[in-house]
């Protein structure tokens, strides 16, 4: 039954994506202060199409695969981590879009160092790290507070796993973001450099947005543990945040992954944008 529901949900997601096409190139470029030229437009167009397709495919596989595995193993339970697997699929889709992006050909290079805060705001980098530490702290609290037996899957080993994931995920995702911006960038014109920077920034935003959503999801799982504990004080103060965190995660994902950001190199006259 769960398998069928997952397929229906996946088909629904595909339908929505078919309706909601990739953002128009001009609009996407404008929101990133990118000047489109005859030279860079085809690269941007192709990237937006493939990124949309690969990320969505990742989400769909992430929705279906865990249910398929649970079904194949004959287990009578739902797979752990509701949003975890689609987020993982989305991250893998983003990496695939970046890897399959045609490499620019040229014998020119920029003399500006490529650094992460040029491609995504410092506030967001800090937010991801702080969320990781906060979630690990809540995991420690949840470990100390004995979870009720009735919660089933939220056992102590599971809490330890969530805590470790909360610590490891920001580190791993930041490594992926740094890998994206440090990939070779041979170019033949300044307009291609600007387009390449904008595409890298989009990929970094997608990964970072998914990472923040992942942290909120893990936090929600742990808050549910605290909300179901025998300690009255914890139950009173964690029930609403747990519900909030669960419902906010998908919106945070969309919001953070699609923020506008104009890449400004250190030698540019203007300062980086201030969006998070």
């Amino acid at each position, binding site marked *: 039954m769960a398998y069928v529901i997952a397929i229906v949900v996946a088909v629904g997601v595909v339908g929505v994506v078919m309706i909601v096409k990739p953002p128009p190139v001009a609009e996407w470029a404008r929101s990133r202060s990118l000047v489109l030229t005859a030279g860079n437009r085809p690269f941007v167009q192709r990237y937006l199409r493939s990124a949309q397709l690969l990320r969505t495919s990742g989400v769909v596989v992430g929705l279906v695969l865990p249910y398929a595995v649970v079904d194949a193993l004959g287990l009578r339970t739902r797979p752990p981590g509701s949003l975890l697997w689609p987020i993982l699929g989305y991250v893998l889709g983003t990496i695939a879009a970046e890897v399959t992006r045609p490499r620019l050909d040229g*014998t020119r290079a*920029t*003399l500006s*160092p490529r650094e992460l805060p040029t491609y995504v705001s410092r506030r967001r980098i800090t937010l991801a790290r702080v969320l990781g530490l906060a979630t690990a702290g809540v995991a420690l609290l949840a470990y100390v507070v004995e979870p009720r037996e009735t919660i089933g899957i939220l056992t102590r080993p599971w809490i330890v796993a969530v805590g470790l994931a909360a610590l490891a995920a920001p580190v791993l995702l930041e490594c992926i973001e740094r890998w994206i911006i440090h990939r070779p960038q*041979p170019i033949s014109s300044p307009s291609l450099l600007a387009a390449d920077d904008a595409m890298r920034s989009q990929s970094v935003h997608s990964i970072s947005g998914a990472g923040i959503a992942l942290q909120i999801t893990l936090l929600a799982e742990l808050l549910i543990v605290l909300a179901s504990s025998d300690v009255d004080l914890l139950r009173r103060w964690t029930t609403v945040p747990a519900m909030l965190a669960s419902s906010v995660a998908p919106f945070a994902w969309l919001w953070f992954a699609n923020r506008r950001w104009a890449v400004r190199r250190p030698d540019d006259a203007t300062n980086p944008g201030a969006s998070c």
Partner: protein
Amino acid sequence: MLIDLDPASDVPPYEQIRIQVRALILTGELEVGMRLPPIRQLAGDLGLAAGTVARAYQALDADGVVQSRGARGTTVAQSAASIQHTDELLDAARQLAATAHRSRRGLDDAVVALRVAFAAQGGRA
């Protein structure tokens, strides 16, 4: 701020990088304190071996144009005016060396002549 590599040129790639970085400082595009890209980044972008870019950076460091600070990266150490003054001194030194060579005098004689000239200007010899 871009750097161009001409694969067909007779000038070796490391020398092309060195010349262009100096030129960018002289035109004022690279200012004192600005960081140059890490060796791996520039080598990857230009499709060169890391050693080639490292050699260019070492040559610039030896010229006093940039300063390499290990993990903190390589930064521009000289301004356009400073490079121009250094170049003027270098030209004058080359003329002194050529004159000494023509009159079959050695380095010690050239240094003595330089000290005398320096003292005559009121400078510290």
